[in-house]
């Protein structure tokens, strides 16, 4: 097996210098997710302004893949329109479920295409998706707490 494919420079870089880490105020939705097989955890907050993700902040313990993935996600969705962020979520999830069959669209996923190799390692896909799952959940909670958005 090819370790370099999994641990790409980009991933190691995000792992060592995570972007946007730390929990910040204000936020409307917060989610705590655990990977039950390894005990890795993330707490993630979403702050929505109008139809924009105004901030995504997080605190996590985990392996290089899960930490780098949260950092890459931060870059992709922070400041994005809610709909665009959800589209990225869908695209990244699809990439992770591709079992090594997809390379990912660098145009849209930017640094996140570095995770294409992870999709070959079923045991690590959960790591890569942990932060995204927290984002999805926190967003649902945020929308539920903002009047007029629940029907979105």
């Amino acid at each position, binding site marked *: *097996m090819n370790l370099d494919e999994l641990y790409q420079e980009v991933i190691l870089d995000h792992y060592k210098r995570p972007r946007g880490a730390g929990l910040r105020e204000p936020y409307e939705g917060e989610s705590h997710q*655990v990977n*039950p*097989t390894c005990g890795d955890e993330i707490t993630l907050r979403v702050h929505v302004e109008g139809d924009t993700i105004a901030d995504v902040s997080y605190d996590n313990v985990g392996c290089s893949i899960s930490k780098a993935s949260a950092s890459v996600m931060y870059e992709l969705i922070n400041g994005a329109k809610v709909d665009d962020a959800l589209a990225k979520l869908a695209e990244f999830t699809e990439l992770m479920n591709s079992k090594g069959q997809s390379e990912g669209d660098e145009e849209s996923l930017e640094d996140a295409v570095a995770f294409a190799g992870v999709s070959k*390692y*079923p*045991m*690590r896909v959960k790591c890569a998706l942990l932060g995204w799952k927290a984002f999805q959940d926190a967003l649902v909670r945020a929308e539920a707490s903002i009047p007029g958005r629940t029907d979105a």
Partner: protein
Amino acid sequence: MEAASKLDVEAIRADFPILQRRIGDKPLAYLDSAATSQKPVQVVEAMRRFTDYSNANISRSVHTLGAEATEAYEGARAKVAAFIGAPSPDEVVFTKNSTESINLMAYAFQNAAFDAAADPRFKLGPGDEVVVTEMEHHANLIPWQQLCRRTGATLKWIGITDAGRLDVDTVDEVITERCKVVSFVHVANLLGTVNPTSQITRRAREVGALVGLDASQSVPHIPVDVTELGVDFIAFTGHKMLGPTGIGVLWAKADLLAAMPPFLTGGSMIKTVTMEHTTFADAPAKFEAGTPPIAEAVGLAAAVDYLDKLGMANVRAHEKEFAGYMLDRLETVDGLQIIGPRVPIGRSATVSFTIDGVHPHDVGQILDAEGIAVRVGHHCAKPTCARFGVNATTRASGYLYNTHEEIDRLVEALGQVRKVFG
């Protein structure tokens, strides 16, 4: 002879080494598949390949063997889900056998009794009713009996007609507004009756009861589609469908599994654990505490592949024809009474009978001397025996590898039985 059958029985038999066995100097005629089926080399080989190449514990490690084992196990789940038309693999829970699957359901009600916040569908108490039938295997009777004893609910049942059919005329009367769950056998293991399900499921819906099937004798033999059946849960078991012992299946609707409290607790079914408190994983993991039957799941997947390749409609057609032949021929035996439907309509290739004046033990012994393996006893269906006024029966049951010739041998040997004991 086997004109109606789309199965190439000779080719199938070649896949089952045990069918070459001799009992004394007689070739084995295995007519006891309702108790447990034989396993084709494809199943044994798949398990062996797994053991010799990929064996590891699942869901727990990042190493290659662990990933391969997890994929094999989850792949088996997906295969089983597709086989029974389940909307999602997450609705398939692996257990050790049908019996555990049914107990798991019954304990969902029992454990809900301890939990004020439990889903109301699982709340059971005095005044509430649970409905089964008089033709249940003990596996689908005693768990509900115990549940009723413990919660104060009342157990009721649908009776059996003299012809060995469910007394469906009483369905509306037995299943009342107080009923919370109906669990009934799809194909009866003593009588061979294939029960029509729609009348009972419709009535269960009407009164808001959950409804499930003991599908232990149906999934191996007839096409089963849980979505078409419109039930809430079914239970079946690997060893009766060409698979290994040690694995069973509970299928239940996702929202039901989500609402059910856990049953067995331990590793691999948790989210977080402290000494004081545990939160649980989502189904199916929630119901699979501990190391599951991993190699057995691989074997079951190979069994499903085998059945899929033959086509369950073809298996069904073969057995229907076979049941007809068996019934016709058995009727020719002096003093033989069939217990159960006497026509091959709405029935499986499992036929129970008695022989005047000869105890089933003795019948079975004489048949065994001829190499013919049938089952004798109460077949874990004592209430059915009581209904027909017998203590035990002799039961011959066919599967996809059985031939007319084996029935001919059975009938001939039955002739001798009366000579010894007549």
